[in-house]
């Protein structure tokens, strides 16, 4: 697309119009978009064409993309998938949106998501569920389900997502696309609506590792407005726009954590992917991450506690839904929040309130923080032996709509392979590596902190010798 714009085969306005027409025609099948932003997009496209005419384009100038509806975008609705914010117009852009705007990107719309990013199926959206392009009776995963579905459907080539416990990687796996959760602190959280602040991280969702790398290079960077933003200078990252993903100078040692393969249903697909990677000289070694089983309970304590705190800001006073005719301040708070939040959000607020309440704080919150350190230590120890870890992204391919909707605990288990990485703050990428019954299967590459370059290099190698990432829904898998 970027080459077509550069060669003058089409303008960004033409490209954007074609995308918008396609989205308007096909969005009803997937419900990927909450907002389609024609006017806003065409304005950006005109500016992008002017930027190109002036001779200072970036590789992203004029490219239509979609933002998960968790990122504040000036001039567009930002709903976070919630009734609470169904009429919220952010007064400023998130830093990440601002950076992509500066690169000349065109925002064609805002994508659907689980309410406040709480969910693994996109069924918890106030704006209705999203369907999986590979099988419309199945979920796209969550919480960045709209972004994953939109990319898999070919509605946009790139979208943004956020990942707290797997919300980029699991939908990427379910929809057969490439999704990267960068290291915690790599991309600014300023203007990204908070769910669990010590875990939330934005990242790109694309078809290829090359596109993910390019997006990452423009989304990243130190931001003094985010107190957890990492102040780093990684030359490989700033060079991506010109040089692409760095080439590996040696074969790698890749670890296979045995706890992730214990009861794996589709192990043969991951084994076939290992065989492909071995063609590039990489070697494999079994490693152990002994605290893996404790990750889900640990995550739900920490994430729910942080969520109950972060969501206390929705009070019906300053922004968001307000109930009719409140009789007292307490009534205003309680009814506004109860009407504005969906069931899963309320469940997590109650869980977080319980674990943070007097008498339980040490037994739950502090205990979980201690296990978090043990999980992080497990990874550090593994990375003394190997360069990278490879695992399945999710225990199963995409499940059916309503399959787990009545059982929150079963739904939480979906995050088994993605949550430990989030707790440790490490970068991880999911990409398609095969199909079962026409449904994509994702493999996950996990790297040491701030080594997205290693992950992306291996992912790019894999995508050079396989074509799983080029499959489209509707073709025979």
């Amino acid at each position, binding site marked *: 697309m970027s080459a077509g714009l550069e060669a003058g085969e089409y303008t960004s306005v033409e490209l954007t119009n074609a995308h918008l027409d396609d989205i308007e025609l096909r969005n009803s099948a997937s419900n990927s978009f909450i907002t389609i932003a024609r006017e806003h997009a065409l304005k950006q496209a005109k500016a992008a064409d002017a930027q190109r005419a002036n001779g200072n384009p970036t590789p992203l100038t004029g490219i239509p993309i979609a933002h998960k509806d968790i990122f504040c975008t000036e001039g567009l609705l930002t709903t976070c998938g919630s009734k609470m914010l169904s009429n919220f117009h952010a007064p400023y852009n998130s830093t990440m949106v601002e950076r992509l705007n500066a690169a000349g990107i065109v925002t064609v719309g805002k994508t659907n998501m689980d309410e406040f990013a709480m969910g693994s199926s996109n069924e918890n959206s106030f704006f209705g569920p999203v369907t999986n392009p590979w099988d419309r009776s199945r979920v796209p995963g969550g919480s960045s389900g709209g972004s994953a579905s939109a990319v898999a459907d070919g509605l946009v080539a790139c979208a943004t997502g956020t990942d707290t416990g797997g919300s980029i990687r699991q939908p990427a796996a379910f929809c057969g696309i490439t999704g990267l959760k960068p290291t915690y602190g790599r991309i600014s959280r300023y203007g990204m609506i908070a769910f669990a602040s010590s875990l939330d991280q934005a990242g790109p969702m694309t078809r290829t590792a090359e596109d993910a790398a390019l997006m990452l290079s423009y989304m990243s960077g130190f931001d003094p407005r985010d107190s957890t933003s990492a102040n780093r200078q990684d030359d490989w990252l700033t060079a991506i726009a010109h040089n692409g993903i760095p080439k590996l100078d040696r074969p790698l040692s890749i670890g296979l954590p045995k706890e992730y393969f214990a009861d794996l249903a589709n192990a043969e697909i991951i084994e076939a992917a290992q065989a492909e990677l071995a063609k590039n000289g990489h070697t494999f070694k079994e490693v152990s991450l002994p605290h893996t089983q404790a990750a889900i309970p640990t995550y739900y304590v920490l994430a729910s506690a942080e969520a109950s705190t972060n969501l206390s800001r929705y009070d019906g006073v300053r922004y968001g839904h307000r109930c009719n005719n409140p009789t007292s301040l307490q009534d205003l708070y309680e009814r506004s929040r109860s009407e504005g939040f969906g069931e899963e959000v309320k469940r997590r*607020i109650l869980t977080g309130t319980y674990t943070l309440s007097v008498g339980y704080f040490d037994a739950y919150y502090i205990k979980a923080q201690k296990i978090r350190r043990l999980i992080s230590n497990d990874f550090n120890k593994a990375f003394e032996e190997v360069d990278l870890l490879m695992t399945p992204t999710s225990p199963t391919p995409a499940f059916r709509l309503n399959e787990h909707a009545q059982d929150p605990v079963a739904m939480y288990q979906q995050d088994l392979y993605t949550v430990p990485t989030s707790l440790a703050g490490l970068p991880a990428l999911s990409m398609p590596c095969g199909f079962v019954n026409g449904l994509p299967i994702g493999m996950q590459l996990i790297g040491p902190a701030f080594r997205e370059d290693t992950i992306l290099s291996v992912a790019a190698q894999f995508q050079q010798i396989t074509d799983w990432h080029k499959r489209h829904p509707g073709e025979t898998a």
Partner: protein
Amino acid sequence: MTDQNNAEINITHLARLGRLAIPKLSHASTEQELENIIAMIDAMQSVNTDGVEPLSHPLDSEQLLRADVVSEPDSRTAFQSNAPKTEDGYYLVPRVVD
């Protein structure tokens, strides 16, 4: 500790702390859901954490500090454009003091 804790889930109290109105009719089902979640969470109690320091930031990084100077412009009008009820630049709430 599971049984002991589960007996102490008090939805009325938790809902008040979380500023949520939970209808009396759904107290029992909400309590059951929370019990299931807490039972799942309690699995972590079996991990030995003796002598382990809590980890609050995933990469143990230091808190950034900045000089105590004004860095944001006055955006009251922009921010209040999202408020459900305002008057003369103030947010309106039900009367608290008579």
